[in-house]
């Protein structure tokens, strides 16, 4: 579980944060804070689908489901465990 969490957290930090000084945690809002906008969310979705070999239906890829790393992990787990 921790591996998935850290993997996603590190990906978000490396890909979407421009400022090295900014720190985010598993619970930091990503979408509602503006770190990841709705257009960029698509690339995050592709990353998850590629990395975990899953398919997340468009109806489940909501701003709320992507709003924190913890939320994303919960979403991914629904499909990994299927």
């Amino acid at each position, binding site marked *: 579980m921790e591996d998935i969490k850290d993997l996603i957290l590190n990906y978000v930090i490396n890909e979407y944060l*421009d400022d090295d000084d900014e720190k985010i945690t598993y619970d930091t809002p990503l979408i509602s804070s*503006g770190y990841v906008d*709705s257009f960029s969310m698509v690339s995050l979705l592709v990353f998850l689908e590629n990395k975990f070999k899953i398919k997340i239906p468009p109806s489940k890829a909501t701003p709320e489901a992507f709003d924190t790393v913890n939320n994303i992990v919960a979403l991914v787990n629904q499909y990994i465990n299927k």
Partner: protein
Amino acid sequence: MSNFGLYEDRVRNFEWSVAEKELEYTDGNVLNIGWYCSDRICLKGKADKTALFYEGFGGIKKQYSFNDIRLAGNTIGNFLRNIGIKNEDRVCLFLDRIPELYFSFLGVLKIGAIVQPLFSAFGDESLFVRLENAQTKAIITQRKHLSKVRKVLERLPNLEFIVIVDHNKTKKLESRELPFSLQESKPVENFEIYPTRAESPSVLHYTSGTTGQPKGVKHVHYSIISQYLTAKWVLDLQEDDIYWCTADPGWVTGTSYGIIGPWSLGITQCVLDAGFSAQAWYKFIEDYRITMWYSAPTAIRSLMKAGEDIVSDFDLSSLRHLASVGEPLNSEAVIWSQKMFGKLFHDTFWQTETGSIMITNFPGMKVKPGSMGKSFPGITGVVLDAKKYEPITEPGQVGLIAFKPGWPAMMRSYWNNEEKYREKFINGWYLTGDRSSIDSEGYFWFVGRDDDVINTGGHLVSPFEVESALLEHPAVGESAVVAKPDEINMEVVKAFITLKPGFNPGPDLELEIMNFIRKKLSPIAMPQSIEYMEKLPKTRSGKIMRRLLHAKEWGEDIGDISTLEND
């Protein structure tokens, strides 16, 4: 009762001088947007009235009076003047929607310089081409965007100053970088405002076309005449309104109607600097008792997607008038808003180049859901025959939307590109690049673009710009970019690519290319999907036939393919 009244009454004998009189402007006098939006409102006895309610991410809340924004504009203007910024120098605002963005806008204009707002999500290459084209002298930015500026700095010899509004001393400043803190600066009470005139340049917004690099649309201070009157008559802004324009000032709506329109009228406005979520937006309306809401179809469709149940969790009864801009507003969204809020969204049509609203469904006028509405008084709007460029008089016939030049907010030129500017006019008409029909009652009905420009979520993306950036990725051999239909954003970017020898198609490479464009250009320009091709369809002369790829995406007839090259 709306400010507008009856359409027929307003159109009859209309003169733009009605706005000049209300603003107490006479021809030849000094006209400065920065002064009109702050100092003048204070002189009218509204110094203590709230100009801005600001809410940032994490619940940061701030409130500023018209006197506060007057002083802030003076203070920033004074700082810029002291470092050597002069009238007509270009000053870029590369900021999130923080208060300093709005105050810097006023400050730059107060010293007679030209304000160049840029969307802060732009990647380094998008930033570079716009700063290079404008030969920008200073950029005002935040710590978080500094790395993008530093990446392109060496290639920008004209950029003398990088002003950082939130420098916290943990990051060492480099050459040309200057800290500026509004909180720590002594407010400048008395400030000599540069005596700009009606035709003095004011705002430089960049917009994308089918070919070539983005074009800098030059506006002048006289634009306030149109922006003031359209904000009053179309957005129906009234003395006690609490107004929310959801657009970012990196785009023209965010300046024409997110700063100039409301503040020249002395209206209180709200800014929410946070990402989108239906819950946060509804809560914002509830908390600030917003009465007038100006948003975009993409946002409205996102709210529709969030469902109807959530709406009843909030008290949205303060809403009095709703309007929309950026892309065609579908009739379903109009009907939905009536059901959810008891109010219709009123579509408005205009462009970066027009500077102010041109066609709209007016308050109090019959709204035809799905229609763009009618021309603003004083605006001669027609649809032209695509071959003869003459107005079509038969109702329902599709043609090119065009306007008779001469309204106050019309662009005065494309920056350093007179040729492109001239191409926008034919037979004495300004061509918008959009197509529509006009019905027997004078309502316009949008059909689509007349070129390959992609309108995604209300933002124009140049296929050429994305194709060029794709070619800079080491794996990409050839590229073609078209619009793909999208439920929320109307259109999104889709790329077709061929790969260079030694590269294999696959999902990981697709993601890598998507992120490459996102960082280089912007999230908006990032292809939402990429299709690998063995070869791209081309004419016999070697030109890529985007038209075929577009038709494929939209399920349309591919038309004449006689010029398609054979194997």
